[in-house]
């Protein structure tokens, strides 16, 4: 594998810098955001590289579990931050975290033990990237779905209540919205699977090939990852929508928009 020097990375960074300089007059805010995001990428990935280096050198279930919990906590915060009208109180945070825990963690565990089958199963070289990819994609699905759910409930309050007063159950009253919500959570992964290999070469597979892995092996890993991500994002979105809908109504089947941030 050809290693990259700091000079190589600096040359790539010049591209971002050039873009920011070009855009700074017409889009000053965007240029600033671009530079901040690029700096965050460099710093965050360098830090995580150092953490992974330490983890790989000291294979321990405790350290892997700790890393997983930190990743989950940060993903939960990200899900919450991406919602325009999130649930108030601890619900705003916990719906995302619980849904991601149920789906991403159990699917990562299943993949490590049953599919990959490395000894020990918590080998950080497999466990952390797998969980990272699962969490990242599940997080996207859940964030999109919850944002759509709360926003749609807010906008279509009159229709939901019109159905409730006719004696419909909350599930019936919100059924139309629920279908759109689940669809919006699943669209990114469905699109990614449909376009994989035809329109785009997925990042993980490309990375493995660049690192010298045989293309067929890289493809097998990529297929496995995409199926796992579809499962993770799908089950995670299902759980989040279910919890979200339950929280939107109370025990007397009233629509409780006061439980959302205004």
């Amino acid at each position: 594998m050809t290693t990259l020097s700091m000079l190589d990375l600096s040359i790539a960074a010049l591209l971002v810098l050039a873009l920011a300089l070009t855009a700074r007059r017409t889009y000053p805010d965007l240029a600033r955001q671009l530079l901040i995001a690029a700096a965050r990428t460099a710093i965050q990935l360098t830090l995580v590289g150092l953490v992974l280096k330490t983890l790989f050198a000291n294979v321990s279930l405790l350290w892997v579990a700790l890393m997983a919990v930190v990743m989950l906590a940060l993903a939960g915060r990200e899900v919450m931050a991406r919602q325009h009208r999130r649930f108030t109180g601890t619900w705003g945070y916990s719906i995302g975290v619980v849904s991601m825990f149920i789906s991403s963690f159990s699917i990562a565990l299943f993949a490590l033990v049953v599919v990959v089958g490395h000894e020990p199963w918590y080998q950080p070289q497999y466990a952390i990237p797998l969980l990272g990819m699962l969490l990242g994609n599940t997080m996207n699905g859940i964030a999109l779905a919850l944002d759509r759910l709360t926003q749609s409930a807010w906008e279509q309050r009159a229709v939901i209540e019109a159905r409730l007063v006719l004696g419909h159950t909350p599930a019936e009253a919100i059924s139309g919205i629920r279908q759109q919500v689940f669809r919006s959570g699943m669209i990114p992964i469905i699109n990614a699977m449909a376009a994989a290999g035809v329109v785009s070469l997925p990042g993980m597979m490309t990375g493995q090939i660049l690192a010298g892995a045989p293309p067929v092996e890289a493809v097998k890993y990529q297929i496995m990852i995409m199926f796992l991500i579809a499962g993770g994002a799908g089950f995670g979105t299902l759980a989040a929508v279910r919890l979200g809908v339950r929280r939107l109504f109370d025990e007397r089947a009233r629509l409780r928009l006061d439980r959302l941030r205004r």
Partner: protein
Amino acid sequence: MFHVNGLSVRDRPALTFSLQAGELVCLSGPSGSGKTQLLRALVDLDPNQGSVTLNGASRESLPPTQWRRRVALLTADSHWWEVTVAQHFNRFDEQQVERLGLERGVGDWLVERLSSGEKQRLALLRLLANRPEVLLLDEPTANLDDANRRRVETLVRDYLEETRGCCLWVSHDPQQLDKLCDRRMTMTTRGELEAA
């Protein structure tokens, strides 16, 4: 038949009143006095305190879906979510449709084709299809001409006679109040009820 005891929503005054079988009671009062809020609380759409019973059964003893089928609210604006009119009905009764001056076959119409007056009359029929015992009607004739207003009034009167149900009818029309109701209540600006 329908008893409301100490019902209050948020910081509004507690309200107590009853409706008897077959009775049509009109409720009037200035805008913002809380008439709609009262109707919403009666169908348990907003959190509230107090007791509401129908023929001796408290609302807490019934599932909310069943309560709202028996105590039915017609809101001032009607809302539609399916494509055609009939898709919104449990049971589409062509006879009732004609009684309200609507065309036979309106059930197959697209909702977007309906005028506001047609929507209002159809929303009432949609409500009555559940055969409720208590009708809570929030200005049900606000968008109607005289002929259709009379049709709605007659239909509701006949329904109450047939089912021995009761009705709380919100109206701002003094003529309608005089002619239609068995009893009148007024809601003050402070949200208290007074017999009129």
